[in-house]
């Protein structure tokens, strides 16, 4: 397992490098530049030219890229052309906000999604099942901003139970050493700050987590349905085991693999959803900042942030892959064995058949398997 993790981490370097080149070229290929973004209606060709000259935007792209690379290795991603602050500073400011929100949303989606999917599958064909399926279909169809507005309107404006946005009450004075408000409240021992931060998290997390929730419900349900019809479950039932034991020992563990994959994929979803959610709830996070930076052609921010996001994305997926090992002992055992000791590779045809089926076959291929769990 350790070797596996180490190997993946080593791959990280080249991946990020390649990505950075692609990014750089793509950004420069986009029409327009930061100059007119900064000037608004006051942009004149002379002003734009002057700014481009000052910012070194006239140099050939490989020269700019080289300078960027040299600085990036020293963790200096340059400065934002809009705020004129170091990109690293903006990252330290915005990433904790989004990570806190995303994590909460994910906990919400998983905490409700898996049980709901499980029960929908176990009660296949009943009202609960149909409701869950329909709910998840609608959940995917509703535009995120629409859902966010409705939640806000009902709970914050009409009922006044929850705040309309932001991470904390403007009049509250709290310390934020790490930038994760709930955590900060815990370490400073400020109960009011903890509660305030939590209260501000509820609506955005629900809005953001709604789509992953819908997907997780569907996948969990489909996956549980698959497993429940397998022979070994029928055997277990015939043996007379309690349903709870069956569930814990057999169904859940086998059903969770596709769900784990989906959770990894959700990381990408959360990021795109984060942009809209952060905008609607005035959450000062990465999504909104990057969206702004695209409009402003803030190259430094875009390069640094997108690379960081890719880095985190790879880490999350690595964590998911590691979790395969935790959930499914077959994977753990086989991948940890040196190549010579592993069970003989199945004949090509059988392997391909396994690969094409919806669940992972045996072997380390399970870890490399990336497709969606159900068609």
């Amino acid at each position: 397992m350790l070797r596996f993790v180490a190997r993946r981490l080593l791959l990280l370097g080249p991946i990020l490098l390649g990505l950075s080149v692609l990014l750089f070229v793509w950004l420069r290929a986009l029409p327009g530049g930061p100059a007119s973004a900064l000037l608004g209606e006051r942009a004149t060709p002379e002003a734009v030219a002057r700014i481009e000259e000052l910012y070194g935007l006239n140099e050939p792209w490989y020269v700019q890229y080289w300078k960027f690379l040299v600085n990036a290795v020293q963790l200096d991603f340059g400065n934002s052309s809009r705020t004129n602050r170091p990109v690293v500073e903006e990252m330290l400011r915005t990433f904790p906000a989004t990570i806190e929100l995303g994590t909460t949303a994910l906990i919400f989606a998983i905490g409700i999604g898996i049980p709901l999917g499980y029960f929908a599958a176990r009660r296949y064909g009943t009202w609960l099942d149909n409701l869950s399926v329909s709910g998840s279909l609608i959940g995917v169809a509703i535009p995120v901003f629409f859902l966010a507005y409705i939640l806000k309107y009902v709970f914050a404006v009409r009922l006044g139970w929850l705040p309309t946005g932001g991470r904390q009450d403007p009049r509250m004075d709290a310390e934020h050493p790490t930038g994760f408000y709930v955590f900060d409240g815990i370490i400073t021992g400020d109960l009011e700050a903890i509660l305030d931060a939590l209260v501000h998290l509820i609506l955005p997390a629900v809005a953001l987590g709604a789509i992953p929730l819908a997907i997780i419900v569907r996948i969990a349900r489909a996956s549980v349905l698959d497993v429940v019809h397998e022979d070994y479950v029928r055997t277990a039932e015939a043996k007379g085991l309690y349903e709870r034991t069956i569930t814990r020992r057999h169904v859940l563990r086998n059903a969770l693999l596709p769900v784990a994959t989906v959770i990894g994929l959700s990381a990408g979803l959360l990021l795109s959803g984060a942009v809209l959610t952060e905008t609607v709830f005035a959450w000062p996070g990465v999504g909104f900042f990057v969206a702004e930076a695209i409009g402003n052609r803030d190259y430094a921010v875009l390069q640094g942030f997108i690379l960081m996001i890719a880095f985190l994305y790879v880490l999350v997926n690595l964590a998911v892959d590691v979790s395969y090992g935790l959930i499914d002992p077959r994977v753990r055992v086989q991948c940890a064995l040196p190549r010579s000791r592993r069970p003989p590779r199945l004949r090509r045809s059988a392997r391909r058949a396994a690969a094409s089926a919806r669940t992972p076959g045996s072997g380390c291929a399970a870890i490399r398997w990336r497709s969606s769990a159900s068609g």
Partner: protein
Amino acid sequence: MALIGFGLIAFFVLVAIFAPLIAPYGPTDRPGADVITPTNIPGPSAEYWFGLDELGHDEFSRVVFGARQSLLVGVVALLLGMAGGLLLGVLAGAFGGKVDGVIMRIVDVMLSIPGLLMAIAIAALLGRSLLSVMIAIAVINIPIFARLLRGQMLAQRESDYVLAATSLGVRRRSIILGHVLPNSMSPVIVQATLTLATAIIEAAGLSFLGLGSPDPRVPEWGLMLANTQRYLASAPHLAFFPGMAIVLAALGFTLLGERLREALDPKYRR
């Protein structure tokens, strides 16, 4: 449930085809020109079933005409995506080996990029037009069909009838085109209906983001939704009707697809 799905789809297709007959006004007519102010955008009434929009158009007419656009984009994008995906899938499944490996790597890369982001990038590169939206959505869906068909074909390759045909000396191309492919189609059909649903939503999403046709006079549900954020409190009908239309259309295809799959997949039969 399948009936509901089928009914919804039929309803939309009919509405799209007969739009000029169903809609009382043209999409650019402004029957409410004299009445509209930023704070007075009338909602549903007897005269205007879905109310008026912020420029005085009849919302019902615009939603009806919007069906054409949405379904057109969805269907064309689906067909393009299916064609590309099936081609790749057939090649991978038929030839196997290195060809398969290369194609599947490409497909994996395509799958690992979040769909919406890729669509945005493509649409941004190709410029704003209906065509670029269609192409973008098609491209997102190519890997899904490719992988699906390849899997099916691989499974089919090992089956007895293929073995029989090969031993009889039937040429490979005939086997594939005449036997394996048709037998692989049922999950593809299921996927097609589901993809049509998501294509409609994605098309709306891309228009919402401003990547679709630059002509705001042509009604498109996503575009109609885009302009309504500021009116959610004062004129919610502007967002409600196009939004519901998108959801119902997508729902219709999804329901149909789900039930089709459950009908065709033996595992689900109880």
